[in-house]
C-alpha cells in the first residue's frame, strides 16, 4: 500500500526558491534543481506518486477525467482490456454522471488498456509474503 504524506510536503528546494527569488539570488550552477519538485508532480520509478498512475502516455488526461468522483485507486487496482475499459466508461456515463470524454476518449482508453491491461494468471496465484516473521 502506497501511503505518502505528500500533500503538506514540498521540497526544501521550493522554500529555497521562494527565498532566493525574494532576495534576488540565483543558483546558476544547477538549473535542474530549480524546477519545482512539488510532491504532487513527483514521479518516482515511472509512477506519479500522488495518484499512483504509471506516468506514461496520457496519464494526465486520466487524472483530469477519472479522479473527480473517485480515487485514482479505483482505477489502478483494476485490470481490463480495451473493451473492458470501454464498458466501464459506458457504465459510468450511463449511471454515474461521467461526462462525454470527447476527443480524449480514445486516448484515455488506450492509456488504461496499455498500462492496466489483464495479467496472465491461473486459478490460484502464488502467496505473496511481504515479510516473514518468527512464530513465538
Amino acid at each position: 500500500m502506497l501511503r505518502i504524506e505528500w500533500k503538506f510536503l514540498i521540497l526544501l528546494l521550493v522554500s529555497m526558491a521562494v527565498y532566493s527569488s525574494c532576495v534576488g539570488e540565483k543558483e546558476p550552477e544547477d538549473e535542474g534543481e530549480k524546477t519545482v519538485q512539488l510532491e504532487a508532480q513527483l514521479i518516482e520509478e515511472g509512477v506519479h506518486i500522488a495518484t499512483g498512475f504509471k506516468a506514461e502516455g496520457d496519464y494526465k488526461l486520466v487524472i483530469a477525467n477519472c479522479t473527480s468522483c473517485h480515487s485514482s485507486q479505483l482505477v489502478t487496482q483494476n485490470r481490463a482490456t480495451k473493451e473492458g475499459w470501454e464498458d466501464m466508461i459506458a457504465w459510468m456515463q450511463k449511471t454515474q454522471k461521467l461526462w462525454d470524454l470527447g476527443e480524449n476518449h480514445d486516448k484515455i482508453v488506450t492509456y488504461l488498456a496499455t498500462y492496466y491491461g489483464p495479467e496472465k494468471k491461473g486459478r490460484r496465484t502464488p502467496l505473496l509474503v511481504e515479510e516473514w516473521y518468527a512464530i513465538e
Partner: protein
Amino acid sequence: MNAKKKKRTEIGISELYSKEPEQADQLLWGRQADPITRRGFLQKGGLMLMGSVLGGKIVFADHMPGGLIPIGLFEQDDTPIPGKHPDLVVLNDRPVNAETPAHLLNESLTPADVLFVRNNGIPPVEVKVDEWTLTIEGESALSTKTYTLQELKNTFKHYTYQLTLECGGNGRSEFNPPAKGNQWTTGAVGCPSWTGVRLKDVLNAVGVKSDAVYIGYYGNDRHVSGDPDKVVISRGVPIGKAMEEESLIAWGMNGQDLPAMNGYPLRLVFGGWPASTSGKWLTKIVVRNKEHDGPKMGGMSYRVPCKPVPPGAKVTEDEMCIIESMPVKSLVTYPKSGGLLKAGRSLAVKGKAWAGDLSVREVHVSIDFGASWQKATLSQAVNRLAWQSWEATLSFPEKGYYEVWARATDSQGNMQPMIVPGWNPKGYLNNACHRIAIKIV
C-alpha cells in the same frame, strides 16, 4: 538523485503561502493569475494540476483569487479512516473501501474498528441524531409511518445478535479475466454484534399488505458525482428475509454506537447476505409489491449468471440473477501468513467459518496443497447467522515451505472449492479455500 534526496525536507504549505502567496501559487502549481483581476489561471496546466491534487475540477477557477490556499488540500485526508484500525488495507480512499487482514479477525467477536468499510458514496458529514428519522412507506405498506431514532428505541423491543456481514465482491481480486470494481482479497467480512429492533416488528406496526414481495432501503449518503438528488445505492431483500428474527434495524455495534463508516446512526443488518443489502445511514424503507428496483438492484450489480458461463463470457442483463445467501467460506485468522516456525514444533491454527443462511458443519485443514485433510475442532455459532470458530493443531514433517489451507463444509454438504469458483462478470462469490504461508526452519 542522491543530492536531490538530501535536499528534500518538509515544510508546511501554510508556511509557504504565509510568506508569499502568489509566489507559492507559481511554485506549487505553475499558477499565474490574471495580472489585472488577480484571479483565474493564465496557463491551463496549473489549473489541471491543482485540480488533480484537489481530486476534482475547480469549477469556478476563473474566479479563484490568486494566492488562495485551496481548502481541498486540507480536506483531503491521508490519515487512517476515522474510527478504524490503521492496519486496514485501503483499496480506495474516495469513496472509502478498506478491508481487514485475516489475522485481525481472530477474535470471535469482530471489534468495531477492524470491520471492513465498503462505501458506495460519501457518508453524511454531520449527523444530528436527535433529528434522525426513519420512514416506512411503499405500495405494499398499509400506512406510512415516520419514527425518530428515539421513538424506534422506545417503541420496539431491542435485540442483539452477532451477524456475519460479507461484501458480495469479497475475493474479487482472484478472478480471471479480471472483474471490475474494488479488488477485495479476503477481508470484506466480519462478525460483530448488532443491537437494534427487528425489522419485522416495525413492518408489522406499519402494516404489510399480502402482495408485498420485497423491501428496499434508502440512506442519506451522497453520490460521488456530488449530485445531491442522485441516489447512491438502494437495494433490499425479499419479504421473507426481511421478516426473519435476526433481520435488524440497528444502531449499535458491540455495545457502542455504529462506527461512522459503518452507517452511524442507523442501518439495516441482514446476516449471511451480500452486505450491500444491509443499507447504511438508513432513512427510509419501502415495502414493494415487486422486486425492488433502486440503483444497484438491477443491471449487473450484485448479480451472477443464472446458469454457469465460461470465463470471460458476455452475459446479458436478463441472464443475470440476484445474489441471495452467500456461500460457505472460511479464513485462517491465526497465525498471520508468513510465519517462520522452528522444526519439531506443532502449530495451533485458528480461524472462522460461515455459510450464509446456513451453518457450518465441518472445517478441514491441509498442509499438503489439498492432498490430505485434517478435521478441525469447530464451535457452535452463538446465534443463527453468526460465524463459527475453528481450531486445529498441525505438525510438519520436515523443514520447508508450506501452505495451510482451510476448507469449510456447510450444513447441506456444500464445500469450499480449492480453486477459484465459477467466473462471473462482476467477480462475486469467490469462496475458494483461504491459504496462508508457513516456513518450517
